[in-house]
Each structure stands twice: as structure tokens, then as C-alpha cells.
């Protein structure tokens, strides 16, 4: 089953909310016109709904900054959202997300493939034809075998851990393939479910229909890797490029940054997605986020690629200055921050005790603990983020939007649960996430008011998969409440909800269905959605699943995550890409040519 490590990454892949954000972000107060799909002028939250400063001017150097280094530049191993986003510079895939703000950005377009795949009638065979004229940075043509080899590398988890493993689950089909390094096939192309009848054709055989399969092929790990240049774990120090930019030789410096220059062998006519405007792109990793903020505001840095929001001091500065504010956006990152209520820990086996927690929680103090309405996010009401089809921001079954704890309701629920005077429980929280610890404290304080005494237990954040991700451990430690956050790896209802609510996704280790939801009707709905070709009908199914999860009172959503980011006014073609919940880096250009 898929591994839900995404939410653990410091900045996981996130999906952004397009339209709704502008409405709740407070852009009304702004003097600039934010109306409609944009006049291209910079304004507060304008990049969420439109392309700011559209331009085709080439040249100049783009100065990207980050307060956090990439996890891995190796496309098979990276898992941070910003790294996936940056991969668009140097890793092309069979299909990739379109270059556009809002919903159109979520559309997958053929990239290395000449067209979307031919799918067999039983929806189990996908056949792609490659474009001609596609080359790596050293001039060698990209063949279907390079793509297959790239995918095979994901299977070598012993050498290349770190990245998503969805493709292993789907393509292995009992073969027990161990990756190309342990492959007995002379060409190291022993994975049986992927065929390359000729250099420009690649065929995938699935065991059962999987409507989300194309999204998995759009992940960087499904990009081509030339076998000759693969040095195993060391590939990370110099990945090959198939995109418009390649790493400048020796420019990858762990903890310090990287540099990209134009890839002379990239042919613009083969690429309908990328614009490739700047001549060079520099990424500087800094240890001082405050320094990065002041450089952004001073205009000596262009963009924070982490896109996790400016520091508190700059937040105040930006929001209080209309000129600065006009260059800032607060997109939702696609994460929901929540507490899971473990059904295998008494008294949370009782739905009313779970409801008591949800009613007793103080929505406002939880929101403030996450950073408030602008830097933290909107008060969470259900478990589907607003951009994913099927979500409904007005659906508020526990009446959380009014912002106050509901002691009366909580007391009623406690009585129904047979614990009118409250009970004792534990809150498990990662020690390396200050905001999560703060929410745990806020929740603890609110629960105390209705007699629920929750002790906070911190654990090493690195061990999440074996601490709260292991149901046996949760039961023996008595972790009734677990603080977590989740962003989808690909923007569909099952991409988001299945790991959180499908009983078949419960794992002994690395589990993310934390409440251990075992509801056959929910499982059945997921199956129904997987076979649903009509997007509107699928959305309706996801909506039903969301309702069922909330009716079961399994999760207490804190906030729908947001981040306040600043962009240099000289940047052109700025828009928030909904697949990442952040600016689409590959589209950027600079207006002054410097």
C-alpha cells in the first residue's frame, strides 16, 4: 500500500485552493483591484487566481532562496513539495501538470509522451508513444527504456529510500522486483509489468483499473534516468536533466544550494508545458529565515521556494504595508491539520466520547496556535481540503466556524458516553514541530474545561511511523488523541482521503488511518470512486465519504493550512499552482533581465 510519509516531510506536496482563498483572505480591504481573473497587475492574493505580470521576456537570473535544503535532488528520492516543484525544471515525465493557475493547472498534459495514453477497454493497459527530438542534457536521445529504468530505480528502496512508493505497489504484482541494481536481466530492465517494445513506446500493465494512475506517472520518480549515468545513491549529486535547465556542474552543495543553467539539448518545440525564461536559476539555502525575509522585501531575493510562509516579524510588516501586501499571497497549502481520535483506545471506542472532544475543542485557540487566520489557515470543519472536487467549505457538522468551544454539547456527549465527569487520556505529538506542540497545548487546555484530562506526550518526530503509525503501539501507550497533518500526493479525493479512512490502508507500521476507521461502507465508496469515470459523479462520492468520516467523529480538523508568501515585484508569470499549493517555479521570469 502506499506509504503516507508525505505529511511528515517538512513541506509535503500540497494542493492549493484557488477561488475560495481570495474570498476568505481578506483581499477586500486592499486598494488594488483583485476582481476577476486578473489584469496581470500585482495585488494581494492576485497570483492565486491569475498570472501576475505575464511576459515572454527571456534572460536574467532567477534568485530563489530557501530556509531548508532539498531532501534529495534525485527524482526517485525527493519527497518535499518544493523539490517536486523544482523537479519541473530538470525532470520531464510522460505526463505533467499544465502551466496555469487554479483548476486548469491540475490537468495532466502529455510531456515526454506525444499524447495522453491509449487505455485498453478493461482500463488495465496504458500505452504511451514518445515525442521525437527529446534529449538528455548530454545530447543522448530519451528512449522508453530510460523511462522504464527510472521507474525501476524506485524499487531499489535499499539504495534509494526517501521517495513515494505508490508505483511499487501497483507495478510489482507479486514479482518481488528489487530494483535494477539487483536485476539479473542483462539490460537491467527486468520489471515485467512495464514493456518497451521499441524506443518510443512504453506499455504499463495494471492488475486492476486505477483511475489515478496517470497522477503517479506525473511524480518526479517516474521521470527518465540514463542508466549509464546512474551511480546509485550518488546520482543525487548530479542528476541528469531532461528539462530546459540542468544543474551547473558541481553546483549542488548540500546545505548551501544549487544552480541551474540552460540545457542546450532541450528543444522548446517538444515542450508545451515549460516557458524557460531566465538564463540561469540560483537556489541559495540559508540558515536564517529572517535574513531571507528581509532580502525578499528588499528585492535582493526573488522567492522563497519553501513557500511555507514568512516569519512572524515579516508577516506583520507585510500585512501592514499596502505596497508590500500587494506582492503577497496566502494560498492554502492543501494540508489539513487535525487530531485523530484512536478508536482502539478507550473511551474513544465510543462515538460520543469522540464527539465530546470535538465539541470541547476551542476552534479559535487552535487556529491561533497554528498562526492565526492568515498564516495558519481557516478553521477546519471537515476532512476534505477545499480544492479537491467534492469538498464543501460550508459543510460544518460540528458548528466549528462560530469559533467558540461548545461546553454544553460536550457535556451532553460525555453523558451519552457514560462519562459525565470526563475522563483521562493522552495526546501524542511530535517534538520537532512547534506549531503541533502548541495545538496540543491548546487542545489540552480546552478539554480540561469539560473534565477531560489529557496528558501531552511528545515523541521524536523522526519516529512517527513507529509511534503513532503503529496501531499496536498506540493501543499500548494509550494515545487517545494524535496530532497530525496531511496533504495529498496527488489532487483527487482518493489521493487525499483513502490513506486516512480506507480500512484496507491500515498498516502495522507507517499507518496513516490513525483512528483505525473500519467502515465497509466507506471502503465500498472508495471502490465506487476508483471505477467512476465521470468527474462530477466521483466528486459526489468523495463528498459522501467526507460526510461519513465526519459523522463518525473520527477526526477533529484544526485548520485548512495557509501560508503568507512574498514575491519579488520583478518576477513575471507568477501564479500559484494548485498541484503544489505554491508558485509554479518553472514558469517564472524576471522583468529587468538581470
Amino acid at each position: 500500500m502506499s506509504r503516507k510519509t508525505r505529511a511528515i516531510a517538512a513541506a509535503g506536496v500540497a494542493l492549493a485552493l484557488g477561488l475560495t482563498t481570495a474570498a476568505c483572505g481578506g483581499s477586500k480591504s486592499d486598494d488594488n483591484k483583485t476582481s476577476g481573473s486578473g489584469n496581470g497587475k500585482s495585488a494581494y492574493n492576485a497570483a492565486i487566481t491569475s498570472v501576475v505580470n505575464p511576459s515572454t521576456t527571456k534572460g536574467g537570473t532567477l534568485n530563489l532562496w530557501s530556509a531548508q535544503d532539498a531532501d534529495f535532488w534525485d527524482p526517485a528520492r525527493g519527497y518535499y513539495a518544493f523539490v517536486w516543484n523544482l523537479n519541473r525544471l530538470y525532470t520531464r515525465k510522460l505526463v505533467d501538470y499544465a502551466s496555469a493557475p487554479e483548476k486548469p493547472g491540475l490537468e495532466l498534459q502529455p510531456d515526454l509522451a506525444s499524447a495522453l495514453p491509449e487505455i485498453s477497454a478493461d482500463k488495465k493497459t496504458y500505452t504511451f508513444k514518445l515525442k521525437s527530438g527529446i534529449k538528455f542534457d548530454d545530447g543522448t536521445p530519451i528512449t522508453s527504456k530510460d523511462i522504464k529504468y527510472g521507474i525501476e530505480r524506485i524499487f531499489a528502496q535499499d539504495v534509494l529510500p526517501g521517495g513515494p512508493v505508490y508505483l511499487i505497489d501497483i507495478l510489482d504484482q507479486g514479482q518481488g522486483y528489487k530494483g535494477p541494481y539487483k536485476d539479473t536481466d542483462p539490460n537491467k530492465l527486468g520489471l515485467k509489468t512495464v514493456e518497451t517494445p521499441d524506443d518510443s513506446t512504453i506499455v504499463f500493465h495494471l492488475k486492476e483499473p486505477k483511475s489515478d494512475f496517470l497522477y503517479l506517472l506525473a511524480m518526479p520518480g517516474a521521470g527518465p534516468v540514463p542508466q549509464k549515468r546512474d551511480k546509485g545513491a550518488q546520482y543525487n549529486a548530479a542528476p541528469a536533466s531532461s528539462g530546459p535547465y540542468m544543474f551547473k556542474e558541481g553546483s549542488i552543495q548540500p546545505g548551501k544550494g544549487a544552480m541551474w543553467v540552460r540545457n542546450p539539448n532541450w528543444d522548446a518545440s517538444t515542450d508545451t508545458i515549460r516557458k524557460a525564461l531566465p538564463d540561469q536559476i540560483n537556489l541559495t539555502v540559508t540558515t536564517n529565515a529572517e535574513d531571507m525575509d528581509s532580502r525578499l522585501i528588499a528585492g535582493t531575493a526573488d522567492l522563497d521556494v519553501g513557500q511555507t510562509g514568512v516569519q512572524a516579524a515579516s508577516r506583520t510588516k507585510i500585512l501592514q504595508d499596502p505596497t508590500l501586501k500587494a506582492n503577497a499571497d496566502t494560498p492554502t497549502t492543501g494540508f489539513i491539520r487535525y487530531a485523530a481520535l484512536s478508536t482502539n483506545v478507550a473511551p474513544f471506542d465510543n462515538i460520543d466520547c469522540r464527539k465530546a472532544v470535538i465539541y470541547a475543542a476551542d476552534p479559535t485557540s487552535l487556529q491561533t496556535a497554528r498562526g492565526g487566520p492568515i498564516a495558519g489557515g481557516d478553521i477546519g470543519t471537515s476532512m476534505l481540503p477545499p480544492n479537491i472536487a467534492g469538498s464543501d467549505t460550508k459543510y460544518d457538522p460540528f458548528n466549528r466556524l462560530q469559533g467558540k468551544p461548545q461546553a454544553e454539547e460536550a457535556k451532553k456527549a460525555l453523558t451519552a458516553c457514560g462519562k459525565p465527569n470526563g475522563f483521562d487520556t493522552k495526546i501524542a505529538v511530535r517534538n520537532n514541530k512547534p506549531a503541533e506542540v502548541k495545538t496540543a497545548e491548546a487542545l489540552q487546555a480546552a478539554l480540561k474545561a469539560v473534565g477531560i484530562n489529557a496528558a501531552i506526550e511528545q515523541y521524536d518526530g523522526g519516529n512517527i511511523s513507529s509511534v503513532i503509525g503503529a496501531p499496536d503501539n498506540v493501543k499500548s501507550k494509550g494515545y487517545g488523541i494524535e496530532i497530525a497533518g496531511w496533504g495529498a500526493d496527488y489532487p483527487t479525493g482518493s489521493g487525499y482521503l483513502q490513506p486516512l479512512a480506507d480500512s484496507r490502508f491500515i498498516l502495522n507500521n507507517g499507518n496513516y488511518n490513525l483512528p483505525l476507521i473500519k467502515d465497509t461502507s466507506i471502503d465500498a465508496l472508495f471502490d465506487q470512486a476508483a471505477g467512476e469515470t465521470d468527474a462530477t459523479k466521483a466528486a459526489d462520492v468523495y463528498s459522501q465519504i467526507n460526510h461519513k468520516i465526519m459523522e463518525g467523529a473520527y477526526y477533529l480538523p484544526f485548520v485548512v493550512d495557509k501560508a503568507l508568501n512574498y514575491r519579488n515585484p520583478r518576477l513575471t508569470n507568477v501564479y500559484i499552482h494548485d498541484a503544489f499549493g505554491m508558485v509554479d517555479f518553472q514558469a517564472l521570469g524576471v522583468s529587468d533581465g538581470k
Partner: protein
Amino acid sequence: MSLGPEASVTDEESALTADAAEVRGPAEKAIAGRSLKQIAWRRLKKDKVALGGACVVIFLILIAILAPLLTKWFGHPIDEFHNETLDPTFGTPKGAFGGISTEFLFGVEPDSGRDIFSRVLYGAQTSLTVAFLSALVSTILGVIFGLAAGFLGGWVDATISRVMDFLLAFPQLLFSIALVSVLPYEMLGLNARWSRVAVLVCVIGFFGWPYIGRIVRGQTLSLREREFVEAARSMGARSPRILMRELLPNLAAPILVYTTLIIPTNILTEAALSFLGVGIPPPNPSWGGMLSSAVPVYQIDPMFMIIPGTLIFITVLAFNLFGDGLRDALDPKAR
């Protein structure tokens, strides 16, 4: 003391006693017929600065003990959230100087609105407990090993001296962080707050003993050859008796001084570990932890940093003043 966060590895007192031959036993000065205690007390009474330090120390101990009561009278529970005191957009305290008012004497914590007054009181509890107990651990270990090394000599002395040298030549702060961070938050049936206090006491106390140990060893070495010890031995007293009746009383003064002087260092170390995120876990307050959570917001809410920082400063200063005075009183030549 070297655990003392990034402070000089050697303070003047250990420098002076580094060479055993140079150590002047305080007992030497007790010749005027008056007991050392009386002389010291007379001197201490005259030292206004040291007395001032002592008063502040006593005051701090009192407020730490009375923290629950004071909180009840003048503050709010340490874990009570007060959203109404915060700016809804930024999460910063409403009003000037971090929201200081008659309701919240020291203002409120950003992002939660918890009462800083109550939290620093409980922080004093933690800081002082850790500092005193770890000083106690250091002293006990230091006296045992220092006495053993100095009195028994030979290979025992050689071994203990090597261990002390080794511990002093050790990246201690790094090591404490590493050690504390791999230990579980709850153990020995204690809750998170007190089990972490126990861990801190052990770690800080352990790294502190060589300082006391070296001094005790040096003093013992010189006392061992004194006439009164010789006399006791010639009268047939056995080693334990000599240790307990002859040596220890004469060691009491330096032990007292260096125990007092190690306390402020321990306060700084505890705060440093909490600052680095391996100290007392939230929601339990500690001064270092408060400074640590002030880091992201110190620019927009400086009071949140200034209050715990100033408290650490005052406390450490008071202990240092008192300790200095005590040393001067017991051994004026050391100055």
C-alpha cells in the same frame, strides 16, 4: 562549570586550586581561637553586596515554593488560554509591552494568551529545583571521588584524576544535548515534567562533579599531611574515622563555597538545554523554553524575550554575588 553554556571552561577559583601544592586550607586561618564559622559570619555580615545577593536568592526560593499560591492570587493557571488578549490576526498580545496590565502582570504569551507571570513563577520552580539538585549530585560525587583520590592516593588517585581530566576535556554541552534528546520523556513512573527534571539533574550533576572533585582532592592531599591528621593517625584512629572526623569538617568550607558557585552555572545550563529544545517539555514552563519560543517573535513582541531573560540574569547574578561573598568570607586571600 564548563557545562556553563559557552562560558569559560575554567573559572578563577578552579585555576587557583589547580595545583594542589598551592592550596591554602581555610583551616589555616582558624587560629585566632574563634571558629571559622564565627569569622566567616562576621565578614559576611559586612559584605552588603553578598547579603543583597542572599536576599534575592531567598526571595526567589520563596516565590518558587509559593508559586501555586501566588498564581492563584495574582495570576491565572499556567495552562489557561486567553484568546481575548490576543490580536486575532497576528496572535500577538493586545496593548503595549506584551500585554502587561493589572490583570496580567507580566503580559501574555503570544499565540496562546497564557499568563507569563504565572509561567515564570513555575519556571523558577523548575530552574531552582534542577540547579539545586544537580549541584547536590555534583557535590556528593565530587566529595566521594575527590576524597577517595586524595586520601587513598596510588592507582585510585591516578584513575580518578584521569577520569576527571577526561570529563573536563569533553564537549559537554554537545554531549548533554545528545544524551538528553535520546532519552524518553517519561520514565520511572514520573510525569513528563519531573522525569525530565530528573534527567537534567543527573546529566548536569554528572558533568559538574569533576570541578568539586578536583578541589576536594587538592585539599585532601594537603590536609592529609597536616599535623592534626598525623596526630589522629598516631593515636590509632582508623581511616574512616580520620575521613569523617578530621578531614570532612575541614573540607566543609570549600565544599560549601563551590557548591554555591556551581548553582548559577547549573541554572544557565538548564536554561540552555531548554532553549535548545531538550529541556522541560511543554506545557510545563521553563525560562529557557520561554526564551526559545520567543525566538520567532522577539522582533514583534520583545517583552516575551526580555522577561524570562532578565529573570535568568537576576537569579544567576544573585547566586554569583552571594557565592563570591561567601568565598571571600571563608577565604579572603582568594581574592
